[in-house]
């Protein structure tokens, strides 16, 4: 019998494996598909590389005044990066750490055993870290017409000239910009009335403006009724039709929970993910779960942290939890969208005095220097303490970590004002928006 079995070898599984070794335990790591899971193979890494390629060519067009766009070969070139990172960040670690690897699909056959490749594996404790898969909505004709998910969109089998993106959240925006910057005509069809509807309203508004500025068609409040083949692929909606070479489904992701959970006495939550308590323990006291399979915020760094905390709790009986309020989130379009903590509406629902300030990026010296004035930074406070930061702007992904720390440590507006920031940086916008609680920032000289 093993001390610990980890199912899934993505971010959460690997973090759990490393934590187990730190605690002197050799786990068995069970996974299927490419080692490393979603992030390195078909998620964050390849998508961020392709967005970066688009950014370089945008600069090239501006500098040369000529219509240069990346070739589709760039999708194959990014595979080199994926292979390299998969090797150094995942595969090589399997020989560095003390771990037994089993490749195959695991299914629970009892509360303390799984079956893999016909073999039963028993363990004292389990970590389920099986991730998520694209959610394919039930649209008549979609199966026959064919469609892309993130996997195909990151390794297209052919060059396309037009793309319909169904969905209007993070992945939809990233892929829309990625393809638009490959000189592909792009339309976004979003069911709700706003893009990124669960972000601050200012961010939703900016999202639409920025997408439209790129030349992307945005249709919101639209219901997709059917998909059929025409000259290309026709998406029939309640507002008319759109026809394009390809359709990308960016309609969300569903947790991978088809692993005989009933046999282990593990139930699901209302999001269709595995139900866990604050300590990431499932209904079965010997089984923990982490990452996308929980059906909550689906983020690489959060999955890793959860994997680590879950294994520590499982192996030592500790009661660690994760402060979800300080978990930052980013959409890596240009400009970036970044957020952490409460929205204004959420903060208003809490007890205490809620205040908020919005500072346009155009008031930030570095944004002027970079000629990147799009966006804003918004700070939400409760009784003077920072509880939320929401930003749209060039490279704001790089500063949201500071905002997370501020929230985690219970920093006040004054703490940020009194912290000298580097001039000129976009990160300075955090101090400036804090200053906006005290004075009119548009009337201040550069460094006050």
């Amino acid at each position, binding site marked *: 019998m093993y001390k610990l079995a980890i199912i899934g070898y993505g971010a959460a599984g690997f973090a759990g494996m490393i934590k187990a070794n730190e605690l002197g335990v050799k786990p068995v790591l069970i996974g299927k598909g490419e080692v490393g899971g979603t992030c390195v193979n078909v998620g964050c890494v390849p998508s961020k590389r392709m967005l970066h390629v688009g950014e370089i060519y945008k600069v090239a067009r501006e500098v040369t005044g000529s219509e240069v766009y990346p070739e589709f070969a760039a999708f194959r070139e990014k595979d080199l990066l994926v292979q390299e990172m998969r090797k150094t960040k995942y595969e090589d670690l399997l020989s560095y750490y003390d771990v037994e690897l089993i490749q195959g699909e695991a299914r629970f056959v009892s509360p303390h055993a799984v079956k893999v490749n016909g073999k039963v594996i028993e363990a004292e404790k389990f970590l389920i870290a099986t991730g998520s898969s694209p959610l394919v909505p039930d649209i008549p004709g979609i199966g026959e017409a064919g469609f892309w998910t993130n996997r195909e969109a990151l390794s297209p089998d052919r060059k396309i000239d037009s793309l319909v993106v169904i969905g209007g959240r993070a992945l939809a925006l990233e892929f829309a910009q990625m393809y638009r910057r490959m000189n592909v005509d792009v339309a976004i069809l979003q069911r709700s009335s706003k893009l990124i509807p669960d972000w601050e*309203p200012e961010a939703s508004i900016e999202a639409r403006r920025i997408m439209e500025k790129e030349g992307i068609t945005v249709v919101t409040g639209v219901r997709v009724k059917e998909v059929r083949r025409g000259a290309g692929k026709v998406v029939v909606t309640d507002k008319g039709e759109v*026809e394009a070479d390809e359709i990308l489904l960016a309609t969300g992701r569903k947790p991978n929970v088809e692993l005989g959970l009933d046999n282990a006495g593990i139930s699901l939550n209302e999001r269709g993910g595995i139900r866990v308590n604050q300590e990431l323990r499932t209904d079965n006291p010997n089984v923990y779960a982490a990452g996308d399979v929980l059906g909550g915020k689906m983020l690489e760094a959060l999955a890793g942290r959860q994997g680590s905390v879950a294994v520590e709790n499982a192996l030592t009986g500790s009661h660690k939890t994760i402060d979800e309020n300080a978990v930052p989130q980013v959409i890596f379009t240009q400009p970036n969208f970044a957020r952490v903590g409460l929205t204004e509406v959420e903060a208003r629902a809490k007890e205490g005095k809620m205040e908020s300030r919005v500072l346009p990026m155009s008031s930030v010296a570095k944004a002027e220097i970079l000629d990147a004035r799009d966006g804003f930074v918004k700070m939400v406070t409760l009784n003077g303490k920072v509880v939320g930061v929401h930003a749209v702007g060039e490279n704001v992904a790089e500063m949201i970590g500071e905002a997370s720390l501020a929230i985690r440590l219970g920093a006040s507006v004054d703490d940020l004002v009194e912290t000298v920031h580097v001039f000129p940086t976009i990160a300075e916008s955090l101090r400036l928006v804090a200053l906006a609680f005290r004075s009119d920032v548009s009337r201040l000289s550069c460094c006050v």
Partner: protein
Amino acid sequence: MKLNLRINPEASTGDKCETCGKPLTSENLYTRRIGGQVHYFCCSHCADAFEKNQHCC
């Protein structure tokens, strides 16, 4: 193929104030939660007008 958009152009216009129809930006945006939903306006007066309208009928 080029994108072939056979969609009501009304459907693809930008975000607008829900009362007066003025185009919204992150700078003129004013939101208010009315009837459990966040509504988008250009100013507090437009939000008041929207709220009043909701109540009277």
